[in-house]
């Protein structure tokens, strides 16, 4: 009991250098709180004020996290969190996707009569949760960040209160999400039991010293944590919730989930994965078992994702299953990363490219969505190229990018990912991945068939495209093509980010 007495003052104080490093987090927190306050002030027209503040916060956060990209890694809050190029890279992804979601949501909420300011606050809080997850170095802190993000997303999913489908989606997501978090937490507890610490760095040392890698307790705990993450990224055994939730949720939120949520999950997954010693500390037996399980999960994810997408006619569900398929490709990268010379940088590039093309696709979907997200079935899309050529062209770019057809970011990302997988000797896995992406070409192009090669249905009016959305759309198209044609800046950024891990 005696060590409780001395309260060490330095724990509480925050050095100025730590403040600077954490500036993006504080900016977003401050912005969110300000937005919350403003939402209550009636006379200030909360619809506009909260929107503008949240957009400003997102922009501010993004600009503040730029320096972090090249800075050195700095442990904050006594090692609980770390601010390094890796976390700054992900901060950029989260904040940009939050920004895009906010931009396209404004008009969407008006047309859906859901213009409540809380929406923007929740988006900011979930972005904050993601940022914390990316820089968490301690399992419990990670859990807390995960929950902040998830809780705000649960409520965002059920934002359209009156719609039974939204409620159903939210409830399913909440219950299964809750269960998964509980499972992961139980894993954390077991790992704590086996190694005596929940601090990521410390686990590795304890593993090496205590040789706890062998103990059943640790492996069960480790697997439960990994299972929790697999649920979050919707890998096969745990993917059942995703299509329903994606279909139920409002379109911008689905976009936000596929990009932000998946990126955050993978960010944390990579840190935890390393700490659990995959590739370094773990014993030979456990390593091969984990590799086999992940190998099977990756293959099943790719196959299930691509094959079911073939049968879907609702665009949101198609993109949901395509997101599962892309998780499969990312898992291939994950498995191959430790042994491949490329390491995790191809994973980061893929996440960034995937975020860009997916956000773009969801911008187009938001603009095309009718009342209550109707009008998103394939035959509703026929002839769009005649009505709105710009939307059709950008959708074509995004779809070609998702299919991995060359002059786009998707191709470069897939090239790097599979290239590092081949270097790690995972040739059979890559062949399966390549064949699955061949299947994916079919359902991506089928959307183009409806858009370009069918005549428009009678009376279809061309969707009105507000200025905010055009800006967001243009930026995404430019990013997709730019990374496709000149990938080296992004790749260099990713390599620097990974170096610090």
């Amino acid at each position, binding site marked *: 009991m005696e060590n409780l007495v001395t309260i060490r003052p330095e724990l509480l104080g925050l050095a100025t250098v730590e403040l600077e490093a954490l500036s993006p987090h504080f900016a977003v927190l401050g912005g969110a709180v300000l937005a919350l306050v403003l939402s209550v002030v009636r006379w200030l027209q909360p619809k506009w004020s909260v929107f503008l503040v949240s957009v400003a916060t997102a922009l501010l956060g993004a600009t503040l996290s730029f320096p972090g990209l090249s800075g050195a890694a700095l442990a904050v809050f006594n090692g609980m969190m770390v601010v390094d190029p890796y976390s700054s890279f992900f901060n950029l992804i989260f904040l940009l996707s939050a920004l895009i979601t906010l931009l396209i949501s404004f008009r969407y909420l008006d047309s859906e009569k859901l213009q409540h300011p809380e929406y923007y606050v929740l988006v900011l809080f979930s972005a904050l949760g993601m940022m914390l997850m990316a820089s968490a170095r301690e399992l419990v802190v990670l859990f807390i960040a995960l929950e902040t993000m998830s809780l705000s997303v649960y409520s965002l999913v059920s934002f359209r209160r009156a719609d039974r489908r939204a409620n159903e989606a939210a409830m399913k997501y909440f219950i299964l999400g809750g269960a998964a978090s509980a499972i992961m937490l139980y894993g954390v507890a077991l790992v704590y039991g086996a190694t005596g610490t929940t601090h990521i760095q410390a686990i590795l040392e304890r593993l090496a010293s205590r040789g706890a890698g062998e103990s059943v307790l640790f492996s069960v705990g480790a697997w439960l944590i990994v299972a929790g993450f697999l649920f979050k990224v919707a890998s096969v055994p745990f993917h059942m919730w995703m299509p329903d939730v994606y279909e139920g949720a409002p379109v911008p939120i689905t976009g936000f989930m596929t990009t932000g949520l998946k990126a955050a999950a993978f960010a944390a997954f990579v840190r935890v994965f390393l700490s659990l010693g995959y590739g370094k500390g773990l014993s030979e037996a456990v390593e091969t078992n984990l590799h086999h399980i992940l190998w099977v999960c990756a293959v099943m994810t790719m196959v299930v994702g691509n094959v079911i997408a073939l049968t879907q006619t609702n665009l949101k569900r198609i993109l949901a299953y395509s997101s599962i398929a892309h998780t499969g490709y990312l898992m291939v990268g994950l498995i191959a990363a430790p042994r491949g*010379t490329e390491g995790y940088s191809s994973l980061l590039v893929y996440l960034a490219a995937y975020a860009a093309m997916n956000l773009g696709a969801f911008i187009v979907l938001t603009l095309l969505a009718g009342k209550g997200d109707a009008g998103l079935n394939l035959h509703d899309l026929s002839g769009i190229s005649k009505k709105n050529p710009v939307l059709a062209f950008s959708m074509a770019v995004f779809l070609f990018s998702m299919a991995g*057809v*060359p002059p786009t970011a998707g191709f470069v990302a897939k090239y790097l990912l599979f290239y590092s997988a*081949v*270097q790690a000797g995972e040739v059979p896995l890559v062949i399966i991945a390549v064949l699955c992406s061949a299947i994916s*070409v079919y359902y991506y192009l089928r959307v183009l068939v409806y858009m370009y*090669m069918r005549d428009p249905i009678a009376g279809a009016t061309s969707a009105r495209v507000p200025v905010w959305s055009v800006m967001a759309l243009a930026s995404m198209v430019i990013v997709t093509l730019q990374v496709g044609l000149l990938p080296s800046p992004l790749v260099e950024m990713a390599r620097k980010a990974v170096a610090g891990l």
Partner: protein
Amino acid sequence: MAWFESHLLSTLVFLPLLWAVAGLVIPGKFRKTHAVWALLGSFLVFAVSLRLYGAFDAGGAEFQLAERAEWLPSLGIAYLLGMDGISLWLLVLTTFLTPLVILGSFSAIQERTKEYYFLLLFLETGMLGALVALDVFLFYVFWEAMLIPMYFLIGIWGGKDRVYAAMKFFLYTVVGSLLMLVAIFYLAYAHKVQLGAYSTAIVDLYRVNVPGGGWLSVQSILFLAFALAFAIKVPLFPVHTWLPDAHVQAPTAGSVILAGVLLKMGGYGFIRFAFPLFPEAVVLYQPVFLGLGAVAIVYGAWVAMVQPDIKKLVAYSSVSHMGFVILGLFSLNSIAAAGSVYQMLNHGVSTGALFLMVGMIYERRHTRMISDFGGITKVMPIFAIIFMIVTLSSIALPGTNGFVGEFLILLGTWKTSPWAAAAAGTGVIFGAVYMLWMFQRVMFGPVTNPENEKLRDLSGRELAVLAPLVVAIFFMGIYPNFFFEKMEPSIQRFLERAQVKSTETAIADLGRN
């Protein structure tokens, strides 16, 4: 101007795309201006390609007018362009056909002309890029980028079930090239392991020695991956079923470019990548591909005989003609290799002309069924004369371009395996059978169908499209040396790279040639 001079290849490749993007400014309803604008662009590109012909000197280095720029240094990927004798002529063929195709589709394409001409020029960029890319990654980017415009051309302006044909075309090629991509990964990594540095430049990859040996050794598997991707494109016998659908459903311009240039990408791929990278596997699989080539020739000819639709007939004739190319390449001697490169050029000219003419009668009668025609010579004599000349070139009559190609290929193949040459030779007979039978049912005989009576003969524009092709047919038939001079050294290097000492020098000492 100096920049253009030093970056000739880049200008050639990206001029069509930039010109097309500039063309987007013209508002949709000025249909004629789009066409004229695209035509202007394609003439400009043709001029640049002629400049290339001047700049290329046969005796010089292997890859000339090379340009290099860092693209993805961490993976050793560079923006590397270069050109040799073989790719020179394929370039000129592409830039020669595109203006004709654009001129040919003035009247054929009435709606959404802006996108149409944009896609055509984008397609030209893709093709030119693939022909000059010397970096495997860059080649793959252009190789797949070509598919997008062709997919839309077939899909939007095509015939009745164009969507099925476009999708089949796209998927067939994508599956093939994705397997090739895996092989590229393995090769690039092998280069890193063996030679220390990352590089996907084709010249460096030539130096990588991949463990050869048995039928399923690493080198054989890699070779098969490359060969499958290129065989689908050629198309070689078992993987050819996308071609008839794609041709029948594609608009005239689409099928001319498809037959004229896209099929040559397969052959070019073999020459540039599959052969030099995996010489032992080539020698090992030589009998298999010789067999497939001969079968393709006879099979294509036989199936062409029973086609009710002219375009499908010509499509299957392409399968047969391209079978000759494969035969020539896999005979691994310089006569046959030169013959197959020449056959690629011939096929581009004669089959391109055939498709243009089928397009012209389709514009008039909106049907392609042979049974709907008969006695057209009486109604359209000029058309009949040109159609006769093109048919003769297609059945390889001496004096036209077809003969030189097939003669050299058969002569070369005879040295390697007489049986394959004999079997392929029968293709020459069946070629005459199906072409002349089609010609007779369409052109000769009394005018049975009343609608055929009032068909108007070729207009000035249509003549302008066909005239250069007819001239090319005779010029290539009578004076092929014009082409062989520039091509000769590159073919020698190609064969040396395929590590097969050409055997015919031994025979030449025997007697005066």
